[in-house]
């Protein structure tokens, strides 16, 4: 589907006409990410992160497939084959560091993409399905990243696998059999490593499939925009190509520069030194922490320290950690305000900033040792996290007085450029 004024794919070359009749794949691409997709003209730089997440996935798949060529999924040799890749494979160090840091950058852009959606109300009707599929991608990413971190079979790999699969052990009665079944043994071992490798190879392609659904669902209503006002006519949109391909090209450049700085000059900055020690089931590291992108959820897990009558604190923590992600699936029905964009919602906007700070605090506590005062801080921060989504947002939606909305996207754009007209007129065009 598209707006009626979308440009039509008209192949000129006879070969392309022939292909279009038999398999209209070029037409599909043209309508999806080409000139055939009209996009609001007022998207800001925060709308770059969807494409950047796609770029990050491509980097992960390319470097990952090459890593897999040199990897041995066996607990006796896994650590050594990764080291061999770093030392003896042509540009192996580059593939390995790009893959490890690429995972971090994938999460960085996805978190920015999610917080963009939260601020501008991108989850609201008619785009609920886009939001839900996005969350499915996020969950798949977390599973993939967790299993990938186990593969080098270092100390943090091993003990991280032990702790995370141990979460299932908290489930009453069936917990321990489930944990044993997931690991293929009573502790992480060769069986666990092999299945994690198999799934770590498979899931990125599942993610790619869900991304196609995510984009498909997006193209039904068309992209949202910073005003949250729907497209009203052709004057409100520009074709995706060349306008947003050019903007995304610039965004990709900035992304790759940031990525390269870390990759080439501080490749172990985001990692943990303990993972350069080979896995040893007899020696527990002093602090077991997951990778940084799981820290907020890890903090929520550890924040529960008091049993709730017959429910042990550990099980509560596990339930809360899963709930902290699952509640996002209900967000389109929790925030009922008809106004999408945080720009026109003064109260909502303040709480959005509090949420951002809150998640940062949770992240910090999740990476810190499980000791006071970090546990107390994460208890308050986790309480706010749940209150924000489940209590505060529905209340704001009911009582907030939104600011007046612009009549259309074009009106909002004119207001912006009208104001700065005098200053920008003197700047020569490139």
């Amino acid at each position, binding site marked *: 589907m598209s707006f009626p004024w979308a440009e039509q794919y008209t192949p000129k070359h006879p070969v392309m006409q022939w292909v279009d009749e038999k398999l209209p794949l070029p037409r599909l691409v043209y309508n999806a990410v080409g000139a055939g997709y009209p996009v609001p003209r007022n998207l800001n730089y925060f709308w770059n992160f969807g494409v950047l997440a796609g770029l990050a996935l491509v980097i992960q798949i390319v470097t990952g497939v090459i890593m897999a060529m040199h990897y041995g999924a066996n607990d006796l040799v896994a650590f*050594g084959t990764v*080291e*061999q890749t770093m*030392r003896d494979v042509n540009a192996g*160090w*580059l593939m390995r*560091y790009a893959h490890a840091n690429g995972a971090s950058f994938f999460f960085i852009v996805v978190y920015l993409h999610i917080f963009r959606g939260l601020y501008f109300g991108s989850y609201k009707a008619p785009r609920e399905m886009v939001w839900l599929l996005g969350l499915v991608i996020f969950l798949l990413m977390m599973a993939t990243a967790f299993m990938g971190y186990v593969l080098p079979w270092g100390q943090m790999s091993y003990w991280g696998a032990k702790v995370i699969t141990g979460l299932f052990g908290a489930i009453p009665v069936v917990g321990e059999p489930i944990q044993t079944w997931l690991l293929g043994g009573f502790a992480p071992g060769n069986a666990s490593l092999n299945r994690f490798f198999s799934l770590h190879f498979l899931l990125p392609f599942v993610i790619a499939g869900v991304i196609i659904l995510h984009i498909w669902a997006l193209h039904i209503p068309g992209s949202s925009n910073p005003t949250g006002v729907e497209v009203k006519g052709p004057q409100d949109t*520009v074709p995706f190509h*060349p*306008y947003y391909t*050019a903007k995304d*090209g*610039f965004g*990709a*450049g*900035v992304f*790759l*520069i940031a990525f*390269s*700085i870390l*990759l*080439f*000059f501080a490749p172990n900055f985001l990692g943990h*030194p303990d993972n*350069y*020690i080979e896995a040893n089931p007899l020696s527990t590291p*002093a602090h077991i922490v997951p990778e940084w992108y799981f820290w907020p959820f890890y903090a929520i897990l550890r*924040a*529960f*320290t*008091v049993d*709730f009558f017959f429910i042990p*604190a550990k099980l509560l923590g596990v339930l*809360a950690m899963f*709930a902290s992600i699952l509640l996002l699936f209900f967000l389109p*029905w929790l925030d*009922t305000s008809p106004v999408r964009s945080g720009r026109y919602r003064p109260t909502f906007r303040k709480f959005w900033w509090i949420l951002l700070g809150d998640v940062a605090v949770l992240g910090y506590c999740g990476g810190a040792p499980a000791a*006071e*005062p970090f*546990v*107390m801080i994460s*208890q*308050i921060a*986790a*309480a706010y996290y*749940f*209150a924000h*989504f*489940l*209590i505060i947002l*529905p209340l704001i939606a009911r009582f907030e007085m939104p600011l007046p909305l612009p009549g259309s996207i*074009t009106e909002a*754009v004119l207001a*912006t*450029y*009208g104001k700065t007209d005098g200053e*920008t*007129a003197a700047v020569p*065009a*490139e």
Partner: protein
Amino acid sequence: MVRIGAFLVGLFFAGWLFISFLVGAYSYVTEPPAATVEHEFHLAPKHVAFSFDGPFGKYDKAQLQRGFQVFKEVCSACHSLKFVAFRDLEALGYNEAEVKAIAKQWAIKTPSVDPATGEASTRDPVPADHFPKPFANNVAAAAANNNAIPPDLSLMTKARHHGSAYVYSLLTGFQDQPAELLKHFPDAKTPEGLHYNPYFANLNLAMAPPLSAEGQVTYGDGTKASVDQMAQDVSAFLTWTAEPKLENRHRAGLATIIFLLIATGLAYMSYQNIWADKKKAAV
């Protein structure tokens, strides 16, 4: 219905977290956590400058050779270096013949099989071999070292925070236990057979000070072999064993970033160019 359910779930989690906070805060106030000896006396690694620091850093080959000599004459008696091969030493500036000689004369021999009888035996290492391990297995290593297994050193500088500085600090950090420590933590006296070192995570380690006297090794290049110098050199060498491709990485990084800056600049200009008419039309 969704919102009522959400409200109740939110109230439960937030409420119980708040109660957990109150319980935690109460016990924090009534029984403040006792200070631990590690918390009070453990030190962060010393600051030490190396030639490979920073984005343009390079290894100092003369220093790596000195560090290798310290490893060969001191560390290798107990510590393995299993991810490094003799052939890798060419990166330190040795030529093929020198590497061959180093391998052949290595004190520890490579496990092998007697070609005549099939029985286990040993042979001289060749450049393609990795450094042979000083002990046949962990049991032998523990038996020879007061029940502690000397860790492999290939990745040591990446397996600790600020690894290069850590190795240097540890090697120069052996000392007597401070009187202050024994006064406040009488139970924390260093046990028999261990050695006090504030740079080690739990303050007492099994390794005796390996670099104890000036001139313990005699450097071929005439550098004075003070304990500090030997510790710096071997830290540099172990940084190389952990990250042998550091120079390639810095070089490739510089080229990549220069390329990306130009490409991104061009991308920005074409972005501005393409949007120029839209921004004008809006005025």
